[in-house]
């Protein structure tokens, strides 16, 4: 299966920044209580709060908000953090469109029937090339449709 994903930096920063601050406060308290507050090592020790905070933030980000889309020629799976947000088979869908949300972010929408029930693939949160991926999906839907209408012809091709 191929994978689409992207590190969403603003979300990672928003998760990490409180922990960077808390780590800096903790290190500073430890420095003061150890009598190292006037030491030249102080700045170096305080800077350790960045990797520490980022590591905690990254763990939370990966568990809760990191989006991954796994797909092959038959099916797709959308994961958000550790959760399986949605999955489906291309053959169950009839139409695909590019949809913009209120912030202008472009995602893919798969329709089971024109204007009916749909599933969204959050492409804006991955490194996918929008139009190319849409064309790929459209091809999958057309092939699935052709398979349903004429299974022998598709097998022959």
């Amino acid at each position: 299966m191929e994978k689409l994903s992207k590190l969403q930096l603003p979300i990672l920063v928003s998760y990490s920044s409180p922990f960077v601050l808390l780590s800096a406060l903790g290190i500073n308290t430890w420095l003061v209580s150890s009598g190292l507050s006037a030491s030249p090592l102080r700045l170096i020790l305080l800077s350790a709060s960045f990797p520490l905070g980022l590591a905690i933030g990254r763990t939370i980000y990966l568990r809760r908000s990191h989006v991954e889309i796994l797909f092959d020629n038959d099916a797709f799976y959308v994961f958000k953090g550790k959760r399986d947000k949605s999955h489906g088979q291309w053959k169950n869908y009839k139409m695909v469109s590019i949809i913009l949300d209120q912030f202008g972010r472009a995602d893919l929408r798969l329709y089971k029937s024109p204007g009916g029930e749909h599933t969204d693939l959050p492409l804006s949160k991955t490194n996918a090339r929008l139009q190319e991926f849409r064309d790929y999906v459209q091809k999958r839907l057309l092939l699935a449709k052709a398979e349903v209408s004429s299974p022998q012809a598709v097998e022959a091709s």
Partner: protein
Amino acid sequence: MVQNTAVESLIDSFERGLINGRARWVADLSEFIRRFRIRETTFDLYAKGRTRNRGMLISRFFAWSVLPDYNVALLCVNGGRGGAFSMDRMRSLTADALSFVERDGLQWVWLVILLTGPLPSAVVAFVERYERKELGVAVASVTTGQTSTSSNKIGTSIPGHLGLGKLIERASHGEAV
């Protein structure tokens, strides 16, 4: 075949521009569908949206208080597919677009027809005389750079507000679009 590829690549660029908000001064297009069938015609690109922008806070309030909220759409088709572009095909495209206006309760539709080679004079005359306010028509050649639009407000907005004029000009000079 090569010229058809040029038209298809121009439609891709045209769509990319619209996704990036090129039409925003006239309409907020929010959904883009390729190979969309209306009656007998398969349109290469169908984009739908509203005249009222979404925006955030102040711009949303401004849009809500000032702008009308109409459903609108854009249809774009590679007219060169399936042989020479005739007046019959032109009439059938406008009829299909108008039927779509009525079927989906749209306020108006942009209809963009892309061709290769010189534009047929009968088609140019038809487009320039076209007056129905629900349909803005533009026909353009990706090889000669010639563009013709209907004289109604919706039609005249196509080259400028949708960025079609610049794209056609670049394509006709052989530049990558």
